[in-house]
C-alpha cells in the first residue's frame, strides 16, 4: 500500500498580465512507506512546486493528493495543521527557515510544543536525542543559528523536520547551498536517518549524482511533467527518454572522457528551455530533442509502462529511437 499518492495534480499560477502558466501538469506519483523518491529536472520544471502542492503549501488547481487514505486537498485549517507533524519539509537555505533569535534547543523543541507532543518536561530530552542523531554535540543546545556553519544549520533544520516523527519528509535541494565537503556529510546523515527512522523521503535536486546516491526511485521532470520514472539504477543505466539521456550526458564528471561527452550532451539537449508562458505543442521537449519529428508536435505523450521493466516513459517513439541508435552504433 502506498503512503502517498498524487493523481493528475495540476498547479497553475496567474501572471501579472492576466495570463496563467502551468507549473505542474498532471503529475501522478506514489510513494511507499520508508521509500525515497528522487525528483530531478532543471529550473522551471515544477519540482519545487509539486513538493509544495503535496504538502498543501500551494493548493493544487486540480487533482488529488492522498496521504494514508486521506485526501489532503479537501482539508483546511486545524485538520491540515494537525497532519503537518506527519509530513515535514526541509528547504534549501537553512538560514531562511531558522529563527535567528532562537537557540538550537528552542528550535528543536518548538515543533513538539506546536503539535503538543510529549509532556513539556520530556521535550528537552527528545531535543537532546535528536541533537545527537544529527551529529551535533550537547554544547549546541544553547547556540544560535548565526554561530553555526551552513552545514550545521542544515542539520538543525533536518532535526526540526524529523523530531515529530513524520512519515514523509520532503527535501527541496537540501544540500545545494552547501560546500561539497559538507554536502557529503549531510547526504550521509539523511541516508542514516532515513534507514533508522523508516521515514519516506521525496528528495528534490538538480544534481543527478546526489539523487542517484540517495533514491530508490527517480522521477525526471521537464516543463511541469514527469517524462520518465523508474527504479534508480535502471533509470540511470538505461534511460529511455531523450531528455533523461541528455540530462545524464550533461553532467560533467571527473574523468578523461569529460570533454567528448560535452558533444553528446549538446546533441541530445540542444538550445534553451522554452518559456512556460508559451510552451511547445505536443511533446514539450521536442524543441530541444535530437529525434523530434513532425508527429511530436501533435499530441502530448502520456507516461507509459516500459514492457518488462518497472520504468515509465513519456515518449511515444522511444523504442523506435533506441532501435535507430543501436543501428547507428553497429555501423
Amino acid at each position, binding site marked *: 500500500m502506498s503512503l502517498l499518492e498524487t493523481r493528475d495534480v495540476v498547479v497553475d499560477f496567474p501572471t501579472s498580465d492576466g495570463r496563467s502558466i502551468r507549473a505542474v501538469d498532471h503529475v501522478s506519483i506514489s510513494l511507499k512507506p520508508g521509500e525515497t523518491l528522487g525528483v530531478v529536472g532543471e529550473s522551471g520544471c515544477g519540482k519545487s512546486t509539486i513538493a509544495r502542492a503535496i504538502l498543501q503549501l500551494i493548493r493544487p488547481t486540480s487533482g488529488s493528493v492522498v496521504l494514508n487514505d486521506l485526501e489532503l486537498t479537501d482539508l483546511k485549517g486545524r485538520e491540515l495543521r494537525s497532519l503537518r507533524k506527519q509530513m515535514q519539509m526541509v528547504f534549501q537555505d537553512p538560514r531562511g527557515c531558522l529563527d535567528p533569535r532562537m537557540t538550537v534547543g528552542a528550535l528543536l523543541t518548538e515543533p513538539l510544543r506546536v503539535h503538543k507532543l510529549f509532556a513539556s518536561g520530556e521535550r528537552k530530552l527528545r531535543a537532546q536525542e535528536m541533537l545527537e542523531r544529527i551529529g551535533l554535540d550537547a554544547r549546541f543546545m544553547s547556540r544560535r543559528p548565526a554561530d553555526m556553519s551552513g552545514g550545521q544549520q542544515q542539520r538543525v533544520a533536518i532535526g526540526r523536520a524529523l523530531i515529530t516523527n513524520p512519515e514523509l519528509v520532503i527535501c527541496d535541494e537540501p544540500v545545494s547551498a552547501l560546500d*561539497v565537503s559538507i554536502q557529503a556529510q549531510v547526504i550521509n546523515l539523511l541516508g542514516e536517518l532515513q534507514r533508522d527512522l523508516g521515514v519516506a523521503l521525496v528528495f528534490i535536486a*538538480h544534481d543527478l549524482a546526489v539523487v542517484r546516491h540517495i533514491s530508490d526511485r527517480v522521477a525526471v521532470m521537464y516543463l511541469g511533467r514527469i517524462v520518465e520514472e523508474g527504479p534508480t*539504477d535502471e533509470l540511470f543505466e538505461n534511460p529511455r527518454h531523450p531528455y533523461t539521456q541528455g540530462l545524464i550526458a550533461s553532467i560533467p564528471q571527473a574523468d578523461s572522457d569529460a570533454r567528448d*561527452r560535452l558533444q553528446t550532451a549538446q546533441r541530445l539537449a540542444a538550445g*534553451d528551455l522554452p518559456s512556460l508562458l508559451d510552451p511547445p505543442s505536443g511533446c514539450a521537449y521536442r524543441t530541444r530533442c535530437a529525434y523530434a519529428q513532425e508527429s511530436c508536435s501533435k499530441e502530448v505523450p502520456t507516461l507509459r509502462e516500459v514492457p518488462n521493466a518497472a520504468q515509465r516513459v513519456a515518449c511515444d517513439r522511444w523504442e523506435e529511437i533506441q532501435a535507430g541508435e543501436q543501428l547507428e552504433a553497429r555501423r
Partner: protein
Amino acid sequence: MSAALLEVNDLRTEFRTKDGVVRAVNSISFELGAGEALGFVGESGSGKSVTALSMLRLFGPFTDARIKGQVLYDGRDLLKLGGNEMRKIRGREIGMVFQDPLTSLNPLMPVGQQVAECIRLHESVSRDVANRRATELFELVGIPDPKNRFNDLPHSFSGGMRQRIMIAIAIACKPRVLIADEPTTALDVTVQAQILLLLNDLQREFGMALIMISHDFGVIAATCDRVNVMYGGRIVEHAFTEELFRSANHPYTEGLLKLVPSLEQRRGEQLVPISGQPPDVFEMPRGCSFAPRCPHVVDVCKEKQPEITTLGPSHGSACWIAEQRRLPR
C-alpha cells in the same frame, strides 16, 4: 615551460577588515603557457576567485586589499602597472567572465552596444565596424538571430544566453588569456554543457589560454589540461588533470575526489566525507591549513607549512608525507 605567457610568483593577498586581517591568498605561484587551459578547483573561501581578481587588480575602492608578489604577463609585472596601463590589459590582453552575467551586464544598455563599447574602448574603429563585429561575435558564441537581438536588453535573454553575451564581450578583442570564474555555476546542467563546449571551441579556435575556476572537478575535467587544487589560500596540489584523477597525492585532493558522488556510484554506498570545517580565514592554522581535518596528520604538519614536493614533470603536492603517499597504496 620557459615561454610562459603568464607567470605568477609568490602572490599574496590580504584584506583589512574591521574584524581583522584576512589572508585570502597565501603565496601562490604558477605558470600559464600560451593556449593552455589551467583549472583552479577548491571550495568557497579557498582563495581561487581572489587569485584571479588579484591578478587583474579588480578590487573596488572600498576594499582594503594588499596584493604582493609578481604577476608577470609577457614579461611585465601587472602589479606595478599604472591605472591606464592596467586598463589596456584588462579586456584586451586578459578577458574575464564571471559567475552571474546579470550583475555584470548593464541592464539599461542594448546587449550589442555593450559588446561594441568594449571593442571601441580598446581599438580605434568606427561605430559601424564595432557594431558589425559585435554581431559577428554573437553569431560566434551561438546567439540565434544576432542581427535582430542586437538592440535587446539583457533581461530578455535566458541565463545561458546572457553568459554567451558575457563571453562575447570577454573575447571581443581576442585576448590571449581568458579567465572564467565559475562561469556555469548559475546555469542548468544541459546549458552548462553547451557553455563549456563553447569555451573549449573558442579556446582552440583563437589559441587562447584559459583559466577556469570552479568548485566542480567535472567542469575542470571537461575544460582543462592542468589543474591547481586550492585550500586555505594555497595551492596544495598541481597536476595534469588526468594524472590528478588517477593518482591524487594530497589528502585533501583525495578526500575531495572521494566525497563527490559520481554517476556510476550505486545507491547505498557511503560517501566518505572530510570531517570538520574549512579553516577560519581570520585564524589560519600555523602549519598545514588542512592538518586539522587530515586523516594522515603527523606532528610536523601542525608546526610548519609544507612546501610543494615535486612528484613528476608537472605534478606537485604540498604535503609533508607526499613522498610516502606516492608509494602504491
